[in-house]
C-alpha cells in the first residue's frame, strides 16, 4: 500500500464514499440539508399514540412510512433501509444484494410491546398474569413475534437485504451508538479485515412507554408549545431534549480501494476517540474528564492539533446538564479559541435521534464540509451566560470547514468523538 493511502500512524486511511439520511426533516441528503440550513424544525405534536396526561407531547417522529400500525423495530428497520439504500447507491460499491463488507449497526433495544402483550392477554379471563401470557404464547399462533423482537433481527434483515459479509454487529452505546457504529467500521478497515464497511444508526422507537421512561428521568423538554421551539441547545431556558427518529448510513472504504475504483470521495474519518465514565448512570463526571479525553483521543487518533478543527458538531441535547458539561469540556480541549470556534447542534432541528444520533450527525458533519455551510443552532433566543460560545445562532453560516469533530455522549458513561475531514491530515 502506498504511503498516500496511509494515515500518519501508518494505518489505512478511511474514506467515506456513500451517505444516506432520513429524519423528521425529510428523506435523503438533499431535503435534509436544505431544511437544516434554513433552520427548519422537524419537531411536531405526536399523533402516533394518545398523549393525554403526558408532560411531553412532542417529538421529531418520522411518520407516514407505514399505512398500518407497526412496532418500533419495524420502523427502525425501515429508516435504516431508506438511509442505507441512499448511501450504498451513492457509493456505487458492490452489486445490489452484494455489499462487499461487514455491517456495523446501531439499533435500539427492542422488546414485546403493549399491542402484542394485549393480544396474548386476550385469552385470559380475569386478572392477566405472565403465566397466562406464556400459556397463550405456547399455542404458537403468533410465531412471527419471536423473530420480530429478537435484538439481532433488525440488523439481520438489513444484512440480508444488502448482502453484507460476515456476522452483522448490532450494537448499543446508548446515545453515542451511531458514532460507535462508524468507529467500528473504521477499526475494521484499519485492521485490514475489509476494504469497506456499511455503518448505520437507526432509531424509530418513539412509543408511549419509551417517551414516559425518559420523562420519568426528567430528561425531556416539557415546553410543548410551539413544538418547533422546544429543542434549544445552549440556551439559558433549555429544559431537556426532544425525542427524535431517524436513520443514517455511511459507506466507509479504504482510501486505496476508493481511489482504485475511481469513486467520488465525500470525506474522511480521520480519528475516533472513546472514554468511559464511571461516575454515574445518567450524569457525567463533574470535571468533564471523560468527554475531554474522548475529544483529545479523537484528535490524537487523527494526528491533529486542536487548532486544526474548524467546527464542532455538538452532542448538544438541550438538557441543562449536557450542554453545560459539553461547553466546559470543549473549552478545556480548545482553550480560549473555543469562544470563536463555531459549535452548533443539529438536535435543535431534528431532536435527539438517540441510537441514530451519532450517525445522523456524522452525515450532517460531512455535508457541512462539502457545502462550506454550517447549520445553525435554532431557538437560540436566551443565551446562557455560562456558555459563552459561538453556537451559530439561528441562521446558517457560510464558512470554509475542512475538519469537524462530532461529539456523542450517552447514558452509562459512553463518550465517543469522531473527526471528519475533506482530505487526509
Amino acid at each position: 500500500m502506498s504511503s498516500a493511502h496511509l494515515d500518519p500512524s501508518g494505518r489505512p486511511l478511511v474514506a467515506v464514499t456513500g451517505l444516506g439520511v432520513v429524519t423528521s426533516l425529510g428523506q435523503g441528503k438533499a431535503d435534509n440539508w436544505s431544511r437544516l440550513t434554513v433552520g427548519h424544525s422537524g419537531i411536531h405534536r405526536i399523533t402516533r399514540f394518545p398523549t393525554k396526561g403526558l408532560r411531553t407531547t412532542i417529538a421529531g417522529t418520522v411518520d407516514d412510512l407505514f399505512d398500518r400500525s407497526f412496532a418500533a423495530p419495524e420502523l427502525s428497520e425501515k429508516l435504516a433501509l431508506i438511509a442505507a439504500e441512499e448511501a450504498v447507491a451513492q457509493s456505487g460499491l458492490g452489486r445490489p444484494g452484494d455489499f462487499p463488507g461487514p455491517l456495523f449497526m446501531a439499533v435500539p433495544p427492542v422488546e414485546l410491546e403493549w399491542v402484542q402483550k394485549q393480544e396474548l392477554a386476550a385469552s385470559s379471563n380475569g386478572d392477566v398474569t405472565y403465566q397466562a401470557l406464556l400459556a397463550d404464547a405456547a399455542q404458537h399462533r403468533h410465531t412471527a413475534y419471536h423473530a420480530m423482537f429478537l435484538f439481532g433481527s433488525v440488523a439481520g434483515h438489513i444484512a440480508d437485504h444488502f448482502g453484507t459479509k460476515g456476522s452483522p454487529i448490532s450494537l448499543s452505546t446508548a446515545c453515542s451508538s451511531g458514532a460507535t457504529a462508524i468507529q467500528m467500521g473504521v477499526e475494521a478497515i484499519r485492521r485490514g479485515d475489509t476494504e469497506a464497511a456499511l455503518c448505520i444508526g437507526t432509531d424509530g422507537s418513539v412509543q408511549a412507554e419509551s417517551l414516559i421512561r425518559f420523562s420519568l428521568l426528567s430528561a425531556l423538554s416539557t415546553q410543548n408549545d410551539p413544538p418547533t421551539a422546544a429543542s434549544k441547545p445552549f440556551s439559558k431556558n433549555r429544559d431537556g431534549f426532544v425525542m427524535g427518529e431517524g436513520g443514517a448510513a455511511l459507506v466507509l472504504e479504504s482510501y486505496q480501494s476508493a481511489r482504485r475504483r475511481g469513486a467520488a470521495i465525500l470525506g474522511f474519518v480521520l480519528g475516533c476517540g472513546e472514554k468511559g465514565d464511571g461516575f454515574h448512570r445518567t450524569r457525567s463526571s463533574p470535571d468533564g474528564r471523560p468527554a475531554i479525553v474522548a475529544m483529545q483521543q479523537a484528535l490524537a487518533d487523527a494526528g491533529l492539533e486542536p487548532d486544526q478543527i474548524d467546527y464542532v458538531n455538538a452532542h448538544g441535547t438541550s438538557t441543562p446538564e449536557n450542554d453545560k458539561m459539553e461547553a466546559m469540556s470543549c473549552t478545556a480541549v480548545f482553550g480560549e479559541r473555543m469562544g470563536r470556534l463555531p459549535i452548533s447542534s443539529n438536535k435543535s432541528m431534528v431532536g435527539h435521534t438517540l441510537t441514530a444520533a451519532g450517525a445522523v450527525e456524522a452525515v450532517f458533519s460531512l455535508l457541512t464540509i462539502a457545502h462550506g455551510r454550517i447549520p445553525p443552532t435554532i431557538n437560540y433566543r436566551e443565551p446562557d451566560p455560562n456558555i459563552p460560545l459561538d453556537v451559530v445562532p439561528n441562521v446558517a453560516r457560510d464558512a470554509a470547514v475542512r475538519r469537524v469533530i462530532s461529539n456523542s455522549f450517552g447514558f452509562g458513561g459512553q463518550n465517543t468523538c469522531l473527526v471528519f475531514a475533506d482530505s487526509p491530515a
Partner: protein
Amino acid sequence: MTREVVITGIGLLSSLGEGVAPHIEAVDGARAPVIDAASFAPYPVHPLGAVEYDRQIPKKSDQRQMEPWQRIGVYAAGLALDSAGIKSDAEAKDRMHVIVAAGGGERDHAVDAQILTGLKTAAEPGVFLNERLLSDLRPTLFLAQLSNLLAGNISIVHGVTGPSRTFMGEEQAGVDAIRIAHARIAAGQADMILVGGSYNAERRDMMLLYELGGVMLTGDVVPTLSRDAGHGGMVTGSVGAFLVLEAAHSARARGATAQARLDSVVADRTRRNPADIVRTLTAMAGPQTGVPLVVSASSGVPACVAEEKAALDAIAPGADIVAMGDLTGHAIEAAFPAAVALAAALLQAGRGREAVVTGVGHHRGEGLARLSRA
C-alpha cells in the same frame, strides 16, 4: 500486525456456583447440574443459587440500581478482574476496554400484569396506559433494563473506564463480542479487554419471547445434544461469564498468568437453509481436525443440534464434547463467553492441548473459537 491473544482472567457464575472449580467438577460428573423444574413449570431452568453480591458490588445502592441480569454480569466481571489480578490496578482499569454481550428488558411483571388487566376494560386504552405507566413505572427501572447499562455498571462498580461497547443479538452477540475483542487485541488496537455477558433465566418475560417462537423445552430435561424434534428446545440458565483477554506481551510484562491462548474466533450468519450450519461450521473450523476437546454452546433447538453434531463429526471425530447446556443451561448472550471460559479452564487444568468452542444461535448466527494451552 498479528499478536498472540491470551486469556488472563475468567469469571464464571452459574447455578453450579462461582469460579471455574465447580464447573470443572460438573464436567467430571462430580457435581450434578442444578435444575428447577417447578418454579417456572412447564419450563425447567438452571437457577442461580444464593449469591453474596456484596463481595463484588460493595454498595447496596449500586445493587438496588440494577436488575438481576446486571448484578449477575457485574459480579462475574468482578470475578474475571480478580482472576486476572487486575482488580486493584486503577490505572490499568482506566485504560481497559469493555465489550458486553447484552440483552436487557427485564420488566416489572406486577406492573405489566395490572396494566394488561386494566386495559381489557379501559374506555380509553391509550390514555389509561399513559396514566398507569407514569404512576407505576419506577424511574430507575429504565436504566436497569437498558442494554448498555451492564457495561455502564461495570464502569461504575469496577472502575473499568476505557472504551466500552455493548453488542446485542442473542447468542451471536456473545460470539461477536469475543471475536471483535480478539481481533482488536491481535491487531494492536487494544492490549486488554474485559469481555462477556450475562443472562437471567429466572424471568417469564424472556421465556415469553422464546416460547412465542416455540424454542423452549418443556417437561423432562434430556441432554442438550440429544434433543430432537420430538423433544427439544432450550433449557435456559442464569449465567454470568466474563473473560479478560490480553495481548501476550502485556500479560508477560505485568507477570500475569496466561490461563489459555485464544487462537482464533470466527463468525457467520447463514440464512439457515438446510445444511447451512454444517457447511459454515466446517468451513470455520478449517482443515485442522482431530481436536480432542469440544465445548458446545448449543441451544438445544432441534434443527441446530442435528447440524452442529454433523459438523462436529467432521471437525472433531471422537472428541470429548462438553455441552454447556447440560451444565449451566443455555444462557443466550452469555452462552458462548461461558463456553470459551470453560474451555480455557479445562485446558489450564490439563484436559487437553487444544479446544474448539462452537456456538450456533437458536435463530441465527454461528461462531467458532479455537483455544490452546498457554
